[in-house]
């Protein structure tokens, strides 16, 4: 069977464009959900799927390797001459020059340049264009600058096993170099691989130390000779003193003999003022202060035992941790001890007993730093335990000024060499504090966190602008202090003098009062020994005091109760008892110190006076 479909179109409708037209939506099929089919499927647990349509990126860190740069110079020789002219031949050069001078371009150029030049020359001659014309109007703008300290450079211990940077010393000429002594001060933590070397760094090159010093035992302290910048003296962990000459190499030139040296690590060595410039003295925790002449290191020239009883008994001696010597007062020196006492000594005394002049007590722990104020030598700074104190030589009972107790141990401190009222302290939590007591007495003017580990040593450069601090892991950080903290302010000396005098006077008055009170007590205790039966208004024993106060307290409570019963407010008395301490309850308190007083609080209904909460 044939299926034929005939499709007819009128001739004149051929090639007509298509006509599109809109029509409304028509529903063709509607398939409704069939719940019976759902039996074949299980619902899936909903899960969170994050989708992000961005470029995939990854983070990379790159740290360039330290590269070492070297400076080289090139010798500049006259050059630029054309090939046919030999610069050494006078004739040829003269001929060349004459040729150039005939060039027209040359003539016109020189004329023109000459005019310009003349103008400027005349200008220079007529008036000094760079002169300060408005000098009087210069306003001091330093007060607006916030004090700050910026880290300039960090010098790390190149050895694998890190040791503490226990002492720093600046090069005496221009301070371009820094000598650092490395040692491990922790008890018995010395490992076999620990290097014994100490280094001299050039501050421009933190990658590699400039010179190595190789002692027999690690150096605990190191000092440049202020008179001769090539000589350094160092005190080592085993008690020996050694001195180096940087021109002669890394080995010490001479070392002191072990029998005559200290028996404990040498904590401080200082150069003395002498004609030969070769005298030093050293202090150690074995209780001795030894004087040496570096030309003859076999034996100390003098010995002093820090026995507080002045008997020269080594067993009683106080261990010395720091020394102080001021070249303007060459006969006196001070020693800071492990026991927290500062011993002031006179070098020129005839007998050892007279050598120890007096002692200042007031610290609880070893005195790590001891320094006289460079502008006011009568006042000195001690840094120990958790405080730093300023003392006056005349007041022996206590310091005249002190900082608050910090949370971390203070390990070193130093005055600023340019400003009499500024000093620096470093703490075991790695912060450096800069104090300016003319500006703020309670807190440091600037507190900077230098590193995460403990800081052990601090040295300010002679210009007061830079300071270096050494840490427990051997990292020495060089910091620059903002100019406000290292330029002498107007009237600063006068103000500092006034402040010191005022504090000294206050302490003197207190000292006098204490003395009076002590005398009175002494006389009173003698009196009471004679009169046994008499009941004086003087000292009551603690038990009597307690019963008396309790009686007073209960009386007051009774009186209040009676008053309160009249009112019907729901209050509870919070009783502050000076012997049992303060109990805190919810509600607000008004605390009044002293012997027992009743304070109002508010909570639920209270009971009688016995309900101490």
């Amino acid at each position, binding site marked *: 069977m044939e299926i034929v479909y005939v499709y007819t179109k009128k001739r004149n409708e051929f090639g007509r464009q298509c006509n599109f037209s809109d029509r409304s939506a028509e529903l063709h099929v509607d398939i409704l959900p069939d719940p019976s089919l759902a039996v074949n499927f299980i619902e899936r647990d909903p899960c969170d799927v994050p989708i992000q349509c961005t470029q995939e990126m990854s983070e990379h860190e790159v740290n360039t390797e330290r590269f070492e740069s070297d400076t080289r110079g090139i010798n*500049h020789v*006259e*050059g*630029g*001459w*054309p090939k046919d002219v030999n610069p050494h031949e006078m004739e040829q050069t003269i001929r*060349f*020059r004459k040729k*150039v*001078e*005939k060039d027209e*371009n*040359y*003539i016109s*150029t*020189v*004329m*023109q*340049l*000459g*005019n*310009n*030049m*003349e103008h*400027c*020359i*005349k200008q*220079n*001659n007529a008036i*000094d264009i*760079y*002169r300060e014309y408005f000098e009087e109007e210069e306003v001091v703008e330093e007060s607006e600058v916030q004090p700050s300290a910026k880290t300039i450079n960090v010098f790390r211990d190149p050895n694998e096993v890190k040791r503490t940077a226990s002492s720093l010393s600046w090069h005496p000429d221009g301070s371009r170099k820094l000598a650092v002594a490395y040692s491990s001060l922790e008890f018995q933590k010395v490992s076999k691989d620990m290097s014994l070397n100490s280094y001299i760094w050039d501050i421009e090159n933190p990658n590699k130390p400039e010179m190595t010093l190789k002692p027999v035992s690690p150096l605990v302290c190191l000092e440049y000779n202020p008179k001769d910048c090539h000589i350094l003296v160092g005190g080592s962990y085993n008690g020996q003193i050694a001195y180096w000459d940087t021109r002669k190499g890394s080995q010490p030139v001479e070392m002191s003999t072990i029998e005559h040296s200290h028996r404990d690590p040498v904590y401080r060595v200082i150069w003395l003022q002498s004609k030969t410039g070769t005298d030093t003295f050293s202090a150690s925790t074995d209780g001795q202060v030894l004087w040496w002449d570096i030309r003859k290191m076999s034996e100390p020239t003098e010995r002093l035992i820090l026995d507080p009883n002045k008997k020269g008994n080594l067993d009683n001696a106080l261990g010395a941790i720091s020394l102080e010597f001021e070249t303007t007062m060459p006969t006196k020196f001070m020693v800071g001890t492990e026991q927290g006492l500062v011993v002031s000594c006179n070098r020129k005394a005839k007998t050892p007993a007279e050598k120890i002049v007096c002692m200042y007590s007031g610290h609880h722990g070893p005195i790590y730093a001891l320094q006289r104020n460079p502008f006011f030598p009568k006042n000195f700074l001690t840094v120990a335990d958790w405080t730093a104190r300023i003392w006056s030589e005349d007041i022996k009972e206590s310091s005249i000024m002190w900082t608050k107790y910090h949370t971390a141990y203070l390990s070193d401190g130093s005055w600023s060499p340019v400003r009499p009222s500024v000093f620096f302290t470093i703490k075991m939590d790695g912060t450096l504090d800069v104090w300016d007591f003319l500006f703020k007495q309670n807190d440091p003017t600037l507190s900077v966190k230098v590193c995460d580990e403990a800081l052990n040593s601090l040295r300010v450069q002679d210009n007061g602008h830079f300071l270096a601090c050494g840490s427990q892991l051997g990292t020495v950080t060089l910091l620059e202090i903002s100019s406000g903290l290292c330029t002498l302010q107007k009237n600063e000396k006068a103000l500092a003098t006034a402040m010191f005098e005022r504090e000294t006077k206050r302490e003197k008055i207190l000292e006098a009062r204490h003395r009076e009170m002590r005398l009175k007590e002494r006389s009173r205790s003698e009196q009471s020994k004679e009169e046994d039966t008499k009941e004086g208004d003087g000292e009551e024993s603690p038990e009597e005091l307690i019963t008396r106060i309790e009686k007073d307290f209960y009386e007051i409570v009774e009186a209040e109760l009676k008053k309160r019963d009249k009112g019907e407010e729901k209050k509870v008395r919070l009783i502050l008892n000076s012997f049992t301490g303060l109990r805190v309850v919810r509600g607000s308190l008004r605390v009044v110190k002293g012997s027992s007083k009743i304070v109002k609080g508010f909570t639920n209904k209270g009971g009688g006076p016995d309900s101490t909460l």
Partner: protein
Amino acid sequence: QAEVEETLKRIQTHKGVIGTIVVNAEGIPIRTTLDNSTTVQYAGLLHQLTMKARSTVRDIDPQNDLTFLRIRSKKHEIMVAPDKEYMLIVIQNPSE
């Protein structure tokens, strides 16, 4: 050419002038009133400095160009008048 001589002589006789040097584009001193080693030093160093100064000025603004360079030091003032082919250097001690 006599004018050139006259100009240079006039410059040299101004108050405070220590020396005058004319240098060409290659750094060869054409005319100088100072001794040879000093001249060579000044010529070489100032030439490089002028080139650097000129490139700095033109980097900042390409339409600009260096017209004069003055270096004042503690002891004296060095003035450089640069040109395309030659350079005139005068060292003067400004009177105070």
